[in-house]
């Protein structure tokens, strides 16, 4: 009998606890929390959302445009560094090429003499232009204009023709030859005397 009483008592206590729990939960359910200052929170949320957009627009650079698709910071930085290196290398190569072109341009003025030589088809010209070309290469910065070289070669050829004509005239006329020889020997004697 006392055991039953104790059981009943415990059951009553348990029921009391359950009732207490239920009543508290009921009160808590009914006391639904009401949020105040919804507008403020709305504004704060919208400001937070729009802030990254504004920052993005303000800080938009060429790098963002070019590398904006890379989201990992260190990869983006590496790409920027590599692109900078490539641009620098490209500029250096261009400068090197320009320098080479300039050097080759100077060499072509010497090769221009050979062009004149080929047109003249004269063994004498060949030797002369070769010598001039060699002289040009040795002297380095001394440059010949192709037109000037041509003029010089023409005048030289003209002079050579005149010289050959004169020799032929002298050989054809024995009297003239004799007279000239006498004059030349006289001149030589004078030089010797001096």
């Amino acid at each position: 009998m006392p055991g039953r009483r104790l059981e009943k008592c415990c059951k009553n206590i348990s029921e009391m606890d359950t009732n207490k729990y239920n009543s508290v939960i009921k009160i808590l359910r009914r006391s639904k929390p009401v949020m105040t200052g919804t507008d403020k929170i709305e504004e704060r949320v919208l400001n937070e959302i729009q802030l990254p957009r504004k920052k993005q627009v303000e800080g938009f650079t060429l790098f963002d445009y070019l590398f904006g698709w890379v989201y990992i910071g260190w990869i983006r930085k590496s790409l920027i560094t590599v692109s900078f290196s490539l641009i620098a290398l490209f500029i250096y190569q261009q400068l090197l090429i320009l320098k080479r072109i300039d050097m080759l341009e100077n060499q072509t003025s010497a090769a221009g003499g050979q062009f004149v030589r080929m047109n003249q088809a004269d063994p004498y010209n060949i030797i002369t232009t070769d010598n001039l070309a060699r002289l040009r290469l040795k002297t380095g910065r001394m440059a010949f204009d192709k037109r000037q070289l041509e003029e010089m070669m023409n005048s030289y050829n003209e002079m050579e023709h005149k010289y050959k004509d004169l020799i032929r005239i002298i050989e054809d006329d024995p009297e003239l030859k004799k007279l000239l020889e006498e004059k030349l020997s006289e001149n030589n004697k004078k030089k010797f005397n001096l």
Partner: protein
Amino acid sequence: MVDPELIEECRKGDLQNFRKLIGISSPFVFSVAFRMLGDEELAKDVVQETMITVWKKLKNIRSAESYKTWLYRIVVNKCYDFLRKEKNNIEERADLKTWELISNKISDTSASVIESNETATLISLLTRKLSPKQKSVFVLSDLEEMTPEEISEITGMSKRNIKANLHYARKKIGEMLQKYI
């Protein structure tokens, strides 16, 4: 709960519609956060952070219909974060006087509803000894009146786990009630 078209508009990046969505979603978010944290200001912070996360990740949502569950999942996770942060900062706010005041209020048969600050204090007192999981299960099940299926979807816990956590939560709360009220 929320019009799927409204969610679709927000997914497209429409801020005006998102303002509406904040208005509709905030009370639910606040209710869960308030009951889990037992602090009005912290709950407001959770609302703010939750809505920012919603905006950022709304594009990832599978369908507009799953919005409610997804929203609750974010809130619960945010509350976990806050509880973890606040773990070391929780002050022993409740003294016997506070318990007495709350007890009197509850014992008053005419009082079917209590004030917001009283609710916060009561929840804070009752759930102080609960783990974050037990807290979330208790709030979602007993206060938000959700089914175990819904809770499972929100928290990612199995139904058995939910049942066990709820049992321990109720037991601890029962002990507190027996002791102080």
